[in-house]
């Protein structure tokens, strides 16, 4: 008998250890999110402290995911191990609704008169709606705007940022210079990023679409190709570069290293410039417009997984995270603008020379959100790499992309038999 005892003790220990791994104290509300910046992280911690002070008996357990956020969150949602409240980009709402892993929030809103959902920018709230039900609440957002280097503009004799495509190309030409006189160009007009979201404003400005109203591929249409052609020509003309051409990690890195005079990005880039390239002067302006003005809006918010153990407690945290009081904490964020109008007014975003540009861009912005298979987006990314990195001809590359993704027969859904149910096309 006595020889068995250590065995039993060992087993008990191992069992306790294994259970301890997966089972957090059941009292606390689990919250997850990505970490966009050190300021964001501090705000989240402040936020949790404030929440816990106001809600004794509702402890919060913060479990941030530091890398590959969606890879990990999707697996957690699929296996029912996701935290009670999850930070989520509006981009993923169509897919997650299709997978049926999010809790509709309409019931909570109806029972909670003090929450004021009408205070949200309507388009940001709609980004979390699908088939009439609400699956998340917006926290903050950023649109894309044009960053430009005022010192370089001065040197080139330019006073104002470009307002049209023509001015954009013309200014880029004047800003492309050999600054040290060694015979090779070392300052370019513009740095483009090959990701879809940075070409989309130009596509939309040209009245083109990525997907049509029925959610079918529209990237084979001439308007799409024209916009990409315009951008590709700037590169072949030697007035625009890809970040890697100048040894930069991404387009704002090229801007920060003073290798380019203009680049497109969101509010988060200001934080990056201040921290990493503090010596580089910058200002922001609305994107130059084509046939019409257009920009992309990235919306971040919070949602509650369907399989949460305690929806009511999750709602308590969610309503605080996205409520007015929470909004007053988030407003100090350097990666996004407040989703609530009252907070934007209160904090005088209109008068902030940097932030107001991103606010104004919202008037003509569309949400970064597509109801399309991730594989299609990855194939699109490869096609854009071919166009912008290897100089492949635009129209044939897009035709080939259309053929590839349509042949797969799984354009929208990851699951067979769901093609016919495609309903929501692009936002708005």
């Amino acid at each position, binding site marked *: 008998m006595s020889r068995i005892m250590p065995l039993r003790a060992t087993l008990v220990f191992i069992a306790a250890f294994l259970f301890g791994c997966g089972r957090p104290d059941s009292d606390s509300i689990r919250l997850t999110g990505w970490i966009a910046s050190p300021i964001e992280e501090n705000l989240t911690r402040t936020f949790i402290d404030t929440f816990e002070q106001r809600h004794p008996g509702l402890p919060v357990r913060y479990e941030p995911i530091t890398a590959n956020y969606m*890879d990990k969150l999707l697996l957690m949602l699929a296996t029912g191990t996701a935290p009670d409240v999850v930070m989520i980009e509006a981009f993923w709402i169509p897919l997650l609704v299709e997978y049926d892993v999010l809790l509709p929030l309409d019931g909570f809103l109806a029972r909670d008169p003090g929450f004021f959902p009408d205070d949200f920018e309507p388009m940001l709230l709609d980004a979390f709606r699908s088939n009439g039900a609400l699956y998340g609440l917006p926290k903050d957002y950023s649109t894309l705007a044009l960053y430009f280097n005022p010192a370089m503009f001065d040197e080139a004799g330019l006073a104002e940022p470009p307002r049209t495509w023509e001015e954009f190309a013309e200014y880029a030409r004047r800003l492309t210079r050999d600054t040290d006189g060694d015979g090779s160009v070392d300052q370019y007009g513009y740095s483009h990023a090959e990701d879809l979201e940075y070409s989309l404003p130009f596509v939309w400005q040209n009245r083109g679409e990525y997907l049509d109203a029925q959610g079918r591929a529209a990237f084979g249409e001439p308007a799409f190709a024209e916009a990409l052609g315009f951008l590709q020509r700037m590169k072949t003309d030697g007035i625009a570069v890809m970040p890697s051409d100048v040894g930069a990690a991404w387009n704002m890195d090229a801007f920060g290293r003073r290798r380019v005079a203009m680049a497109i990005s969101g509010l988060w880039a200001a934080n990056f410039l201040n921290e990493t390239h503090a010596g580089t002067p910058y200002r922001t302006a609305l994107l130059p417009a084509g046939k019409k003005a257009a920009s992309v809006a990235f919306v971040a918010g919070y949602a509650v997984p369907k399989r949460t153990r305690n929806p009511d407690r999750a709602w308590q945290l969610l309503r605080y995270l996205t409520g007015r009081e929470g909004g007053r904490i988030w407003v100090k964020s350097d990666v996004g603008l407040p989703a609530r109008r009252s907070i934007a007014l209160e904090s005088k975003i209109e008068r902030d020379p940097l932030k107001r540009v991103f606010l104004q861009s919202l008037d003509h912005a569309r949400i970064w959100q597509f109801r399309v298979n991730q594989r299609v987006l990855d194939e699109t990314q490869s096609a854009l790499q071919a166009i912008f990195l290897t100089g492949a001809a635009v129209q044939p590359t897009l035709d080939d992309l259309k053929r590839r993704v349509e042949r797969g027969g799984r354009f929208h859904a990851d699951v067979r038999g769901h093609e016919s149910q495609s309903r929501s096309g692009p936002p708005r």
Partner: protein
Amino acid sequence: MSEAMSRKAGPGRPADMPERHREAWAAFFFLSPGLVVLSLFVFGPLVFIFVVAFFDWNLFRPEQHFLGVANFVELTGDELFFTALRNTTVYVLGVVPAQTLLALLLALAVNQNIPARGFFRAAFYIPAITSSVVTSIIFLWIYSKPGLLNYVLSQFGIVGPDWIGSPKYALGAIMALNVWSTSGYFMVAFLAGLQSIPASLYEAARIDGASPWARFRHITVPGLKPTLFFVVTLGIIGSFQVFDQIYMMSAGGPVNATTTLSYFIYNSAFRYFRFGYAAAAAVVLFAVILLVTRMQRKIVRPEAP
């Protein structure tokens, strides 16, 4: 385990039965943590792959539809799958001979009585025990446009490209990294092989007046055959499974230039949530590795002559 047990529990000692039993139980007890972990995380999933491959398996849905061979049929029409297959083939054909040859040369070199032999042995082996994530990040710096490699090239007046950012060079650059990181490991294998060749053979050959080349050709090479088989087999399997460096450095891009089979499988499962389809691709990869290993068994016989 089996050796120890069979020695004690040989057929000629029936009287030991109870003790033998007890020892077997003890052995299994001590092995059980390893066995449980292995079955749970290796053998189980391995067998499960062959089931999942015939289903439309999406983690988000409770029901899984049996598809028969539909996943395999779909693979035959998937251009990306063939791109991955082609990239993987190029990778294996490039990396395996290069790493084997380099490992052999390194082993021959550090097997000589050269000064600082211990230092060189350790230096060549360090890449093998360094985390692949770390080496990937170091090589991202070496390969970047303003990186170390291009700096060296610029000393010779060559303007180097952005190695990982260019579809033309990305795969080759990652192949070179892998040749560098694995040859140290295989060097140790060759070194062990070299040292197991009896010195008396070399002595006898020298007395018979055999040239260094003849000694290498007729003593070293045949003596290394079992090691060579081991190195080539592990090299082929490892190369077919290349993933970490691709995931860290290029994410399969640019323009799918570095999408290998294992990366394709990973994406199909964990990005597109098509576990059945991914499993089908994994079965194909398994079949390819099995076939190639068998073929190479015919070419490089493991037994010493």
